[in-house]
């Protein structure tokens, strides 16, 4: 019996995407390759539909139509928007898909590669915090339409990526054990001869290194950090994780959070929420939902929350909280 690893890499959603599928049946090779091409097409399609950086995307059209009454939207946008509003509800509003205006005011108003790393401070007044504003969005299941208030705009970047990762992993799973990774948001379904997938966990302060190894038998991993996408305006260091309670970049005690969850959407949302909440609230959030996480504080301290399936953590200033 010959076991084959099929692997496909491409770029989508402004990040690198990898898809791995194991197969013990050579006759499935053509199906797997077709499945990988389908996966690449799906990522491209979701990006075209949900990117806030594309003026022609369904999301951009909806944002432009904010305040103009109910708008019928595409099935994909509907599905991801419903998932985002569920996450907002489940996190008590800490995850908020309506922070786009605050994010743009902070300087993240174009693709990150095009952002000036250092610039003058924004003189215009910041928009009012949108905490709990997501509750004002009206959905109509019958017509699949959305009524978006005029002062809100949606950003579905992170959760759209997680949704696509989950969708591809589940769709390809009948062909064999599968791993899908989109910029660090990853999902596995199935194992190879019962052996877990080894996944490196990036060292937060030295991103070229791994600080831990996760042996993933199922579920998803996602990592969020305030150190990745950051820029300077005036004398302020800003980043892309907005605290909806303040409308500005989160200013907690955590620098990076890696979360293990049953699916990529949950992992992606939880990583951002914990980063905003900080060590105290973040730990409670993880434990209450039976997730697990690896936290790194801004001072370098590390904390394992729950049963995070890791090994070989660099043994410095770490402690365990279960």
């Amino acid at each position, binding site marked *: 019996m*010959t076991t084959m690893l099929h692997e496909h890499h491409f770029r989508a959603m402004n990040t690198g995407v990898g898809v791995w599928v194991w197969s013990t049946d050579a006759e499935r090779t053509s199906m797997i390759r077709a499945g990988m091409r389908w996966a690449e097409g799906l990522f491209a399609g979701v990006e075209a539909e949900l990117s806030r950086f594309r003026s022609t995307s369904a999301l951009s059209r909806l944002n432009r139509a904010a305040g103009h009454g109910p708008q019928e939207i595409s099935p994909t946008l509907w599905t991801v928007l419903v998932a985002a509003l569920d996450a907002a509800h489940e996190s008590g509003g800490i995850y908020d898909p309506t922070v786009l205006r605050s994010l743009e005011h902070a300087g993240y108003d174009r693709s990150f590669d095009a952002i000036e790393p250092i610039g003058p401070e924004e003189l215009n007044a910041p928009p009012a915090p949108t905490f709990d504003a997501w509750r004002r969005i009206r959905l109509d299941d019958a017509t699949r339409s959305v009524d978006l208030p005029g002062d809100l705009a949606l950003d579905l970047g992170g959760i759209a990526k997680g949704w696509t990762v989950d969708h591809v992993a589940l769709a390809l799973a009948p062909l064999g054990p599968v*791993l899908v990774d989109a910029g660090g*948001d990853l999902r596995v379904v199935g194992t190879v001869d019962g052996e877990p997938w080894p996944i490196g966990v990036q060292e937060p302060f030295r991103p070229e290194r791994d600080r831990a190894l996760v042996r993933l038998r199922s579920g998803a991993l996602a990592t969020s950090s305030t150190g990745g996408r950051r820029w300077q305006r005036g004398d302020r260091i800003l980043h892309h994780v907005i605290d909806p309670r303040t409308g500005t970049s989160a200013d907690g005690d955590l620098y990076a959070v890696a979360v293990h969850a049953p699916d990529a959407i949950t992992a992606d949302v939880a990583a951002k929420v914990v980063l905003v909440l900080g060590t105290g609230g973040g730990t409670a959030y993880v434990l209450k939902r039976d997730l697990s996480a690896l936290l790194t504080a801004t001072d370098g301290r590390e904390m394992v929350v729950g049963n995070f399936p890791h090994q070989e953590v660099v043994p410095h200033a770490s402690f365990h909280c279960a």
Partner: protein
Amino acid sequence: MTIVVDADLTAAVHTTIDERGSETMRRSSPMKTAPPTGSAKAARAQRPAGGSAASGQWWKAWVLLTSLGVTVLGWVAFSTGEPPVENAVVAPDTAPRPTQVAPARHMNELEQTRPLPQSAGMLPAMPQKPVFQAPVTRTRRS
């Protein structure tokens, strides 16, 4: 060990038992071994005369010793021509064991080898046990 006996020697001497039960030896054909030398004739002349029984014992001993010598010479000549059977059998057992087991291990590797797809970029190491010898990918900050 194989001992080769010259067929001519068996034809050279026949031992028969007569009706009286006395053992006699007679020459039925010329011996192809070296004939008696002059010194041998002299030695034979010095033997006690008239003893037929004693003379038969001498011939018997002489033939046995000669045939034994020829046999030894033949064996030596044979052994230089090809290796002893015993050596041929022992040789494989003394060969290095890795050489003997290498083919089986190689087959095992072939059965578990993962063919690389054309689109392969980063791959873990070859899959013995465990399947993965390095992280497949990494979760990184976003």
